[in-house]
């Protein structure tokens, strides 16, 4: 990947971060924010959506293009969802806890909370909201975060309801699960103040840390989503969706800059060649008796369509991103209309298409040596729609970079999704009255970064462990354990290092509840379980989550070792190694300690074994 001078290129980037909140109830009803498995559904029902005009009388093209209107949506309902999710009861009052967390996040982002918050309906007709819209509310404005490359403004903070989870495509439409619908979600949009890939990553990291510092955000896959907007001077605003990890953000920005630079290069060359795009036409006859499996398969009842790209020779195959060419972009557009993809002459002859066929094709559409041709083969309607989409994209290539929404691929490249969403798709939610948030009681929580420092200073944890605990899922449990008087190093080691080790050994640690862990730590603290026994007891608990910690200790065979038994076991070891003890005295300690611990199988505390062993060695030497 070539390295660019981003300042020179006029890189402008912004972030949009969506984070689910971990509140007790949903945003507009009293249902819990718990996720469920589709098999747990108690009822199902089906609906259609009929899009309406927005308040300003305009229908959003992007929203409409997103989905076909005649689709039937099936919804799974649970014993943890109610009629509000089913759009069969008006929404309740906006959830106080979510609003409080929202105001806290606003404070952390140095934002002003609005005087009066108005709940809006954002038109969404893909079925992911039973109502056909998403409720969203502007609650904070004009904030800022710091990065090492300077401040990044935060445009707005929105409190919205999460959409229903997509379970699968059905024959008639899509099946959705209602458990996720209505979980509170904050959306944070930065200003386009970001000017390098590294800064994009740092800003995202910073915002993520602030969000997690509230202790009120959901964790795990899909609970945070990051969108990145990128443009360069002469380029265009491109919105990238579905960014999975922070590392990807940096690469995505980098690769999008590359894409726009390459597209501009293509534009310049096309304009220099005075390139143009011809009319689409039917070239089915050209491929009669073709050897190409793909084309032959489509010819049965379908057709082959083509568009001549005058002056495009060699440029359709021009690489924009690793393994993605201008032709790939053409393909993306064709795919949106149901085609499997396209062929273009820069890559032909290949895929069973012969040189003679290429020549005949060029001849048929009036293309010469400097020109390229793109073809689509599919059923008649698809082939026509697909080639028309390719034509449109090719025309845009002569103009430069098109504005659009793109989806992130695994390798941090992107693919075309749809046009940029329009602005006029919002109207007031008349079922929920406006609220006047009162931010005067809001307190900024200790930041996770501050917490890392404190864990080192106060508890003497090393930097790595302190960060693991502070940023980890079990941080509140750690705090509770320490408050209960449990040794901080023991608690941190058990909650982070030990569970990580167990996971590596394929122990089902996800079964361990907070109570399991806390109970085990308390048993150790009370002297009823040796530190060395923790691994065994947690393993038993993870495999039998119904057991209590005490029962697990017994099950692991670690109970009932008193001092007399320890002494007896130690005496036996010393007896067995009498010669060594006589020869080496205390020098035999380490070797014997291992043997003694092994004999006691973690039932006894190491310190007690050690002091008993010392006594016994002293006696004999």
């Amino acid at each position, binding site marked *: 990947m070539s390295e660019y001078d981003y300042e020179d290129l006029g890189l402008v980037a912004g972030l949009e971060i969506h984070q689910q909140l971990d509140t007790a109830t949903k945003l507009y009803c009293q249902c819990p924010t718990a996720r469920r498995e589709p098999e747990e559904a108690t009822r199902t029902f089906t609906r259609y959506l009929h899009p309406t005009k927005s308040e300003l009388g305009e229908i959003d093209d992007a929203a409409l293009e997103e989905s076909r209107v005649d689709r039937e949506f099936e919804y799974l309902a649970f014993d943890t969802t109610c009629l509000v999710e089913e*759009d069969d009861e008006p929404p309740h009052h906006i959830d106080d806890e979510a609003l409080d967390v929202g105001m806290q996040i606003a404070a952390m982002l140095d934002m002003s909370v609005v005087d009066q918050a108005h709940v809006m309906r954002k038109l969404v007709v893909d079925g992911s909201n039973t109502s056909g819209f998403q409720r969203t509310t502007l609650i904070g404005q004009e904030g800022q975060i710091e990065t090492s490359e300077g401040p990044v403004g935060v445009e707005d903070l929105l409190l919205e309801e999460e959409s229903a989870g997509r379970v699968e495509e059905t024959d008639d439409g899509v099946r959705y699960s209602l458990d996720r619908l209505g979980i509170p979600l904050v959306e944070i949009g930065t200003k386009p103040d970001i000017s390098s890939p590294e800064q994009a990553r740092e800003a995202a990291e910073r915002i993520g840390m602030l969000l997690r510092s509230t202790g009120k955000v959901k964790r795990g896959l899909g609970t945070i989503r990051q969108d990145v907007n990128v443009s360069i001077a002469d380029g265009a605003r491109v919105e990238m969706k579905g960014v999975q990890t922070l590392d990807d953000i940096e690469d995505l920005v980098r690769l999008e800059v590359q894409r726009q630079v390459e597209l501009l290069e293509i534009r310049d060359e096309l304009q220099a060649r005075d390139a143009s795009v011809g009319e689409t036409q039917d070239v089915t006859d050209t491929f009669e008796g073709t050897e190409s499996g793909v084309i032959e398969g489509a010819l049965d009842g379908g057709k082959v369509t083509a568009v001549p790209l005058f002056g495009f020779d060699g440029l359709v195959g021009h690489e924009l991103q690793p393994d993605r060419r201008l032709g790939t972009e053409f393909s993306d557009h064709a795919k949106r209309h149901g085609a499997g993809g396209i062929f273009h002459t820069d890559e032909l002859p290949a895929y069973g298409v012969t040189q003679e066929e290429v020549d005949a094709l060029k001849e048929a559409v009036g293309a010469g040596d400097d020109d390229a041709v793109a073809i689509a083969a599919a059923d008649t309607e698809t082939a026509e729609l697909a080639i028309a989409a390719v034509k449109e994209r090719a025309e845009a290539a002569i103009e430069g970079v098109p504005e659009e929404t793109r989806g992130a691929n695994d390798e941090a490249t992107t693919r075309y999704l749809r046009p940029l969403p329009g602005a006029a798709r919002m109207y007031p939610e008349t079922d929920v009255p406006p609220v006047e948030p009162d931010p005067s009681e809001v307190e900024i929580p200790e930041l996770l970064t501050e917490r890392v420092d404190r864990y080192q200073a106060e508890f003497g944890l090393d930097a790595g462990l302190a960060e693991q605990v502070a940023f980890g899922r079990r941080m509140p449990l750690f705090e509770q354990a320490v408050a209960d008087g449990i040794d901080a190093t023991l608690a941190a080691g058990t909650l982070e290092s030990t569970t990580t080790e167990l996971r590596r050994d394929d122990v089902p640690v996800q079964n361990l509840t907070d109570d399991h862990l806390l109970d085990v730590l308390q048993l150790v603290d009370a002297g009823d379980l040796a530190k060395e026994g923790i691994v065994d007891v947690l393993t038993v608990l993870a495999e039998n989550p119904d057991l209590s910690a005490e029962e697990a200790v017994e099950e692991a065979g670690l109970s009932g070792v008193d001092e007399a038994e320890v002494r007896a076991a130690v005496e036996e070891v010393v007896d067995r190694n009498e010669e060594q003890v006589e020869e080496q005295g205390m020098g035999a300690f380490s070797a014997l300690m291992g043997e003694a611990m092994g004999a006691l199988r973690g039932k006894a505390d190491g310190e007690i074994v050690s002091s008993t062993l010392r006594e016994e060695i002293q006696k004999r030497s």
Partner: protein
Amino acid sequence: MNPGDRVRVERAGVTNEGVLMPSTTADYLVIKRDGGYNVGIEREDAEVDVLETDVYDVGDEGEGEDSSVVEFDDDLPTIALISTGGTIASTVDYRTGAVTARFDAEDVLRAVPDLAGRANYRGRVVANILSENMTPEIWRDLAAAVHEEIEAGADGVVVMHGTDTMQYSAAALSFMLDTPVPIVFTGSQRSADRPSSDNVMNAVCAVEAAKSDAAEVMVCMHASESDDVCALHEGTRVRKSHTSRRDAFRTIGAKPLGEVDYDTETVSFRRDYAERGAATLDIAADLADDVELVKFTPGMDPAAWDYLEGKSGVVIEGTGLGHVHTDLIPRIEELVDDGAVVAMTSQCLEGRVCDRVYDTGRDLLDAGVVEAGDTLPETAKVKLMWVIANTDDPVGAMQRSLNGELTEQSRPWT
């Protein structure tokens, strides 16, 4: 500064630019920002700049341009669409923020394009009210309008009605009209301003029912929470039984008369019905306006019934088999002696009243109470209004079925 102006408002270091909305109050300016979000800004200490006046006409729905003249198709039946207001044809009033009815029948066609091609339509507006504001006066107007439409050749009538009092209006038309064609009431439980509204499917199914062979007054609404089947309820046996669900309407004591499959557009029936053309069109729209429906509850102040003095009819919603506190019986006797028809129904809703079983009941019968069988209390009120004005023997009429409101045999769930 007026709603529709483009303004810039600065307050406490935050600048908001956008269109001033009519939902602005004395305390808060409401701005629609360019991104589409509305935000309320305290007027106090706010600095306002009007950037441009009348950028957007916030009061107009953009009517007119897309209203097309629907062509008449000789092969299709003619259905009269009569609007009384209600959520099937409603929109947001963003001055008050509430959902109000403001479309006429033509707008319904525009709002529900799926109706196109099913029939030739004749639109008509009888009222533009929220259904809780329904009055006997409007019932009379509605009956007259339906009568006129059928007389003018309509093959079926669809009445768009708010759901709150739909059952009363359906009952009223059942008694007022002898009809040779279907009269189908429909509405929506979830407002028409949402893509998920039940208005489209209900309207489509109602039109299909109005084209059917059943010359009955029916209510056509969702049969379940799914958009698959609409139930057809007899207008005198139906009740709104849920505040918000799509399938709020229930036929009491039996399954619905029929149903319409949204997907296949087939209309089917479970029981016998009056066939198209069997009856001769007739109207008797007079109503006695001084009829009350009262509910007896334990601990009620007997003075609550003082206002029944001089009424021509009273329907009591009694307990169980049709009872009230013994102390109220003399009051009923006075009303009957005074010339009122006093009919007994039950707040159980399911089942018929029977005042011969217990002493209280026998005392009520002695006092002159008329048993209304299993007539629903709401239907009984409308019926009593009608029989007092239109029959010589209202007491006898209350004890027999005129339009399916009172069943002869208790044969539930068939």
